[in-house]
């Protein structure tokens, strides 16, 4: 089952007539030199063509709504439909970002309360919702650390410590903030190598970027000591919220000693992943960083019936690192996170961490019992854990990628593969709290069956997937002969 391109469906002159003004008024005051003088390269199709085409395309996807999706570090959990429906009420959708705050109190109230909820659940002093994705949240956090040091005259602090297991965004962000990245090794238990840390902190240390639990699926046991070491050297601690789902409502980054954090609301607060976005990287800060927060952040004046919400600007936060988006970040995403937070409530949040951890440890135990090798067999799993298929690779000549592709044939999205880079032939598996035990059991059965296939006929795995809309792609050739846009003239695909 494949679907031709929308451009291959069209005919010159075909239109979705209901979707544009009925007349085209003449606009005769645009100088010729500035006026369009080439085709507008859009498809020419009917409304039904469009509905049919994109409905069919959607069916080619795996998604949470259709498949178990244990993609490690991505927290693919249930996206409650109410969050979408209610965030899409016309009163919210129609609001212009520059409309008077007096006419947006309903939405601003939600956003303010979301700031308060996130503040409490992370143990920070204040939250700001503007960062538009996790990576922008990271950027904001590191930029604030820089601003903090600069404000104190510590202009020489330009080194950011990053564990070698960290997400690639961490070092990339540090670079974008003008910092040098100092990599920290991991010890045999998966924790940061404390001795190496002590060695690498200095008066040039701006801070450390950590996610805890780490990408290795274990909780950093020495976190309080790490905080002491870094703070002792004058650096600050930045918490990457990628794995916040593991500890939500159970352990708080603020209590661990972090000075600034970001949260991936599309993970922990279940806003949609949307095929790759929009995300949201809400920020939490300690009191000493409050004055550097980005704008706009929402403030409140008055109480009870007199309550008024307002946008904090440079006037309120003269030391702000400033504005990072044209308007108010991904507001619609924030609304979804707010609704989700209210549905969960206080107890519900704690249960997120508890049941995400229960599912993860259960699945790890079952896979271990089934003979798979886990990376840190003596550690508790956090919300995710690592299986290494290096033995299967040496015995049967099949790779983690082969296993992953075969899982697709079994109706499961593959876990994250080959990340973290430290573990060979690695599967990073995150079941999330919203999956049932039966689903986890079925996943174990599939893993066992695939290993049996690997033993009996490894080619089955190497050829996989065979039951999907596409077979494996030649990605190397695609990157060489770049074809990034359809060319109606030259394509032979029609």
């Amino acid at each position, binding site marked *: 089952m494949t*679907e031709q391109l929308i451009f291959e469906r069209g005919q010159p002159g075909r239109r979705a007539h209901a*979707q*544009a003004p009925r007349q085209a008024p003449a606009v005769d005051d645009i100088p010729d030199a500035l006026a369009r003088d080439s*085709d*507008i390269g*859009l*498809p020419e*199709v009917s409304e039904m063509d469009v509905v049919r085409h*994109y409905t069919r395309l*959607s069916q*080619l996807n*795996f998604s949470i709504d*259709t*498949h178990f999706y244990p993609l490690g570090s991505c927290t693919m959990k249930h*996206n*409650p439909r109410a969050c*979408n429906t209610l965030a899409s009420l*016309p*009163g919210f959708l129609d609001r212009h970002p520059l409309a008077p705050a007096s*006419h947006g109190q*309903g*939405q601003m109230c939600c956003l303010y309360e979301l700031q308060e909820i996130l503040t409490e659940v992370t143990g920070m002093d204040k939250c700001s919702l503007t960062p538009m*994705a996790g*990576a*922008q949240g990271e950027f904001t956090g590191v930029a604030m650390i820089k601003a903090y040091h600069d404000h104190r005259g510590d202009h020489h602090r330009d080194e950011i410590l990053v564990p070698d297991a960290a997400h*690639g965004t961490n070092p990339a962000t540090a670079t*974008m903030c003008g910092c040098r990245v100092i990599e920290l090794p991991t010890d045999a238990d998966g924790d940061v190598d404390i001795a190496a840390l002590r060695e690498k902190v200095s008066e040039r240390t701006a801070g450390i970027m950590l996610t805890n639990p780490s990408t290795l699926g274990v*909780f950093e*046991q020495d976190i309080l000591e790490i905080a002491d070491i870094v703070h002792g050297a004058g650096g600050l601690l930045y918490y990457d919220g990628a794995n916040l789902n593991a500890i939500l409502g159970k352990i708080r980054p603020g209590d661990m000693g972090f000075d600034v954090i970001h949260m991936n609301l599309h993970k922990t607060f279940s806003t*949609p*992943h*949307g095929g*790759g*976005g*929009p995300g949201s990287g809400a920020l939490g800060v300690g009191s000493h960083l409050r004055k550097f927060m980005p704008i706009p952040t929402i403030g409140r004046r008055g109480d009870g019936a007199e309550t008024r919400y307002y946008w904090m600007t440079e006037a309120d936060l003269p030391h702000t690192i400033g504005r990072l*988006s*044209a*308007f*108010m970040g991904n507001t*619609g995403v924030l609304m979804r996170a707010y*609704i989700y937070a209210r549905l*969960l*409530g*206080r107890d519900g949040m704690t249960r997120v961490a*508890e049941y995400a951890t*229960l599912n993860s440890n*259960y699945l790890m135990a079952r896979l271990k019992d089934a003979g798979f090798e886990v990376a840190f067999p003596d550690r508790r799993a956090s919300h995710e854990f690592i299986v290494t298929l290096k033995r299967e690779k040496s015995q049967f000549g099949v790779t983690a990628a082969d296993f*992953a592709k075969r899982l*697709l044939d079994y109706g499961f*999205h593959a876990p994250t593969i080959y990340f973290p880079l430290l573990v060979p032939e690695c599967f990073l598996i995150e079941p999330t709290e919203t999956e*049932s*035990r039966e689903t986890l059991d079925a996943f174990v059965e599939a893993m066992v069956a695939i290993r049996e296939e690997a033993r009996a006929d490894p080619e089955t795995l190497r050829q996989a*997937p065979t039951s*999907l809309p*596409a077979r494996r792609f030649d990605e190397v050739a*695609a*990157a060489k002969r770049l074809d*990034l*846009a*359809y060319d109606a003239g030259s394509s032979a695909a029609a």
Partner: protein
Amino acid sequence: MPFIPHTEADVRDMLAVIGAETIDDLFDEIDPRLRNVSLDAIPEGASEQEITRLMRERAGRDEGGLCFIGAGAYEHHIPAAVWEITTRGEFYSAYTPYQPEASQGTLQVVYEYQTMMCGLTGMDVSNASLYDGASALAEAVLMAVRANRKSKSRRVLLPKSVHPFYRQVARNICANQAIDFEVVDFDAEHGTVDRAALDRWAGEDVTALVIPQPNFFGALEDVDALTDWAHDNGALAIGVVNPMSLALLKAPGRWGGGDGADIVVGEGQPLGAPLAGGGPYFGLLCCRKKHVRQMPGRVVGRALDADGCDGYVLTLQPREQHIRRSKATSNICTNQGLLVTAATIHMSLLGPEGLRRTAATCAANTRALVERLTAIDGVSRVFDGPYFHETVLRLPMAADAALEALAERGVFGGLALADHYDGLNDTVLVCATETKTAGDLDAYAEALAAVLETHAAPA
């Protein structure tokens, strides 16, 4: 326990398999000092019914008002099909297409989006989107610095006629990158780049010139001359465009006498994203093919599968942070996938003729509004010259006060510019899109006349 499927029996059996007594035991590696958390400030969980009622009340509070504000976010008709399809679970709840075989829906949508963006802008290549228009400009600046290897200055000319928020965002995101942003003033008569101010930089080492079209004031810049100026001075030309305007305006790929703009960015919101209080929107970024490997963000390419069939994959990943880490072209890893899906469906429904009619109606409505408003005593255009669908008007009173009084009458009359530009006191930036009827325009004019009359009346 919303959204948690576990029964008591499940928990008991699962703990037994793990070999733990309680769920709390699973956290026993964690320092006990960290395990005593109180969340009193968070309300108890509510049922969907309770939250539904609450959200309806709050949404109701924000309803109403005729909106004539533009300034970077525009009210347009969005066909019902757009979000009904976009929010289908298979699009809504999927993630980045790491497994292309299981993600052809998302991947093909992005490939189609890239094609449409290339068509609209006349550029060779588009990425899969960035966060929004403002941050896309920041990324374009960083990209230009990487791409313009002949220039050593890291000097970027940023006209004041570029959206003030975009300028702030570009500066903030590039704050630690040693970029030298230089402001270029605008011509007081036309509200477009002041050629004399620009020529101060002629012959200098300039890395890039940012060219807004239409600019923040709605005015049309002389993009051909500006693009040629950039190229004549060894600078890259970075266009900042409103994609809706491209139905009427020259494609950036055709600006100037050479090969057109080098990089084009813009706010994608007019293509299917609701205003929604500020986001999520998406940033578009296109460039010429020779710069493709300096382009930030995700890109989808066509590929062949093992059966020789066409399909789509993420490509050029070696530029990205999960492979290059601290040497990546950007730290960006998400795109605005759902918005791109909406935009692709939206553009398919409009097609070239629909986009043209919509843009033309916006232009015509704004002209009709300007005619009605400037017929009122004391109201006049600040700049002359051609514009697309917004322009700046001077009022015979403080703009803030006038806008507040208009809002009380149910009209959001535009954006006051005093906070953003010295010398533009008593001015508002107004916009009337295709959503406005003749009656709406009349309503604005009547409300403004009444407000000015009240203001002029002796107390």
